[in-house]
């Protein structure tokens, strides 16, 4: 495949950061509970009416401006989110409209917590084969509109935040290049981190009229809130991310990278994985923000580039494991 570069990345965080104290108040729990989970990672919450396409659009406008490009220069939009604006259509179309792109294809991909890697892999292949010249890759999540804030099971509300990161890809072997990208899914572990409702499979009666996929009694039960088994997610990451790094290094033709970022819903697990990866992972870079699902890895990458933490010639591994269950890694070179 021809070399593919990321022309640039931009992030968007909605509003002001929500402190542990403010979150504790919302969740009616103690600040110690929040701090114990969040480990100092702050989160942002999007206001009512703001969806992932809005966050992605704000980031994309800045990115295009910085690159002196126009929305008309985008040939394909690929969007990865677990928290889409609408039930359908997907958020790629909405971003295309808000940004003012031409009537180019808009692809929505989902692969649990690895959907940034899925979108990156699809995007780089389209570029490498010359099918589309410039691909806008968008990741954006508004999990604060999905997670539980009524004080029951406060974990995800403490661990997660909203945010977006976008990147523009085109052919090229200079600047920031994509050296490897792959992911693996194990659907037999789907319930380790999942949300059952709305569930199109749910049939409460076979008679007509059939009930909706999100019936009132399931809303009352709270069946529409995501559930996570943090111990299972920890075990998954510790078990799978070393092999994900090996697969990415093999594809990139490298023995090691200069630095690595681990995105995981639980920052304690991310740190433990970093320790386990060993020397070939290089310096382990901590994430600034609480977990933003698909946006977590590209947000971390954008931060590193903005801070000048990576020198030309250095390589970086981006690793993640989570719902699906899924895991994988990418390697980029600066």
């Amino acid at each position, binding site marked *: *495949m021809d070399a593919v570069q990321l022309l640039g990345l931009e992030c968007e965080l909605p509003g002001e950061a929500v402190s542990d104290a403010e979150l504790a108040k919302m969740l009616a729990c103690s600040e110690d509970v929040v701090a114990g989970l969040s480990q100092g990672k702050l989160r942002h919450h*999007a*206001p009512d*009416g*703001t*969806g*992932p396409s*809005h966050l992605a659009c704000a980031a994309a406008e800045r990115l295009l401006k910085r690159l002196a490009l126009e929305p008309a220069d985008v040939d394909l*939009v690929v969007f990865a989110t*677990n928290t889409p604006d*609408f*039930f*359908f*259509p997907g958020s*790629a*179309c909405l*971003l*295309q*409209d808000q940004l003012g792109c031409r*009537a*180019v*294809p*808009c*692809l*929505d*991909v*989902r*692969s649990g917590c690895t959907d940034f890697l*899925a979108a990156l892999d*699809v995007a780089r*292949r389209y570029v*490498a*084969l010359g*099918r589309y010249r410039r691909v806008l890759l968008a990741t954006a999540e*508004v999990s604060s*509109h*999905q997670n539980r*804030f009524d004080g029951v099971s406060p974990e995800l509300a403490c661990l997660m935040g909203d945010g977006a990161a976008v990147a523009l890809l085109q052919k090229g072997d200079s600047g920031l290049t994509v050296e490897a990208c*792959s992911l*693996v*899914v*194990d*659907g037999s572990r*789907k319930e380790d981190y*999942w*949300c059952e*409702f*709305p569930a*199109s*499979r749910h*049939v409460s009666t*076979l008679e*007509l009229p*059939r009930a*909706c*996929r*999100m019936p*009132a009694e399931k809303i009352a039960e709270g069946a529409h809130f*995501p559930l996570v088994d943090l111990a299972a997610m920890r075990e998954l990451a510790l078990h799978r991310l070393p092999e994900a790094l090996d697969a990415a290094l093999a594809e990139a033709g490298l023995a090691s990278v200069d630095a690595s970022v681990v995105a995981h819903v639980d920052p304690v697990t991310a740190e433990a994985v970093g320790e386990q990866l060993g020397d070939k992972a290089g310096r382990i870079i901590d994430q600034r923000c609480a977990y933003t699902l698909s946006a977590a890895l590209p947000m971390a990458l954008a931060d590193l580039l903005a801070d000048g933490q990576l020198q030309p010639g250095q390589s970086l591994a981006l690793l993640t494991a989570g719902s699906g269950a*899924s895991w994988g890694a990418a390697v980029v070179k600066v």
Partner: protein
Amino acid sequence: MSASEQKKPTSRILGTAFEVPRTVISNDALAQVMDTSHEWIEKRSGICERRYVDNSEGSLPLAERAALKALERAGLEVSDIDLLLCATLSPDVDFPGNSALLQERLGMVGIPAMDIRNQCSGFVYGLSVADLYVSSGGAKNVLLVGAEVHSTGLEFNDRGRGVAVLFGDGAGASVIGPADGDHGLLEITLGAEGRFADKLYTVGPGHRRKPRIDMDLAPPESDNMFPIMNGRYVFKHAVERMIESIRVVLERRGLTAADLSILIPHQANLRINQFVTQELELRDDQVVNNIHKYGNTTAATIPILLTETLAAGKIEPGDLVCIVAFGAGFTWGAALYRW
């Protein structure tokens, strides 16, 4: 001839199959629960009946059986698949997506799996992604599934009848692998126009709203979680974009509609497809439809119709086949294929 006209295909469909539920829902049955009639539905859409799932297992048992049959027809085993793609707009659970759940059912270990969330164009978008992986060496064989359960997302009353009568449940699967000489996918084109997203959409649960779900949205009082369609708009744009897409893929090969052996159109509305047929001056034997039996199964319509058309012996090796779809987003796409 230009270079692109001579470009050989890199991927092809190795096997295809479908499954629909046993439960048949006639137009008359729908007329029992809302103010409509068989004549009205048939006249507007060509639909006579559709299938609804028989139990609470969702579309994945259908998808699983379709996938296993498609693999058998391809002469392949589950272990030969390197990538699983599931196109759907009505996933069995909220997350993870259908691809993770189907991977578990099929016992596909250690491979990537992705959902393609592109509504009625999901199968054509998925075909593009499948071809992309085969062409770029990312996978040898890809399993592409379109599977839907609409019957739990429809509003069975007078407010929802305009949309409720149109949709059905079903699943189709295709195995995509390396091309064989001149046989395979020749051209594919995709498009989208998000400014028309609200002409055919289901708002909820949507993550613009904080929170995305609460009792204020509970059906049946709220219509937040039911599809809304501006039928006239969809009709007009569907016709335009389907015709345009078919012409794009044909022109890239220096061909015209007259050269087509068969057109496999998305099954949203028979009247749309009749209009397209007429505009392209296609003969009746150049176009197939089966919407009268299944309604609109969104991402599943094309593999279902393709399988039925093959089974009827209407596609011979060497035939020029065109697949075309249009749907919510708006999104659309067409593929030109040498069988």
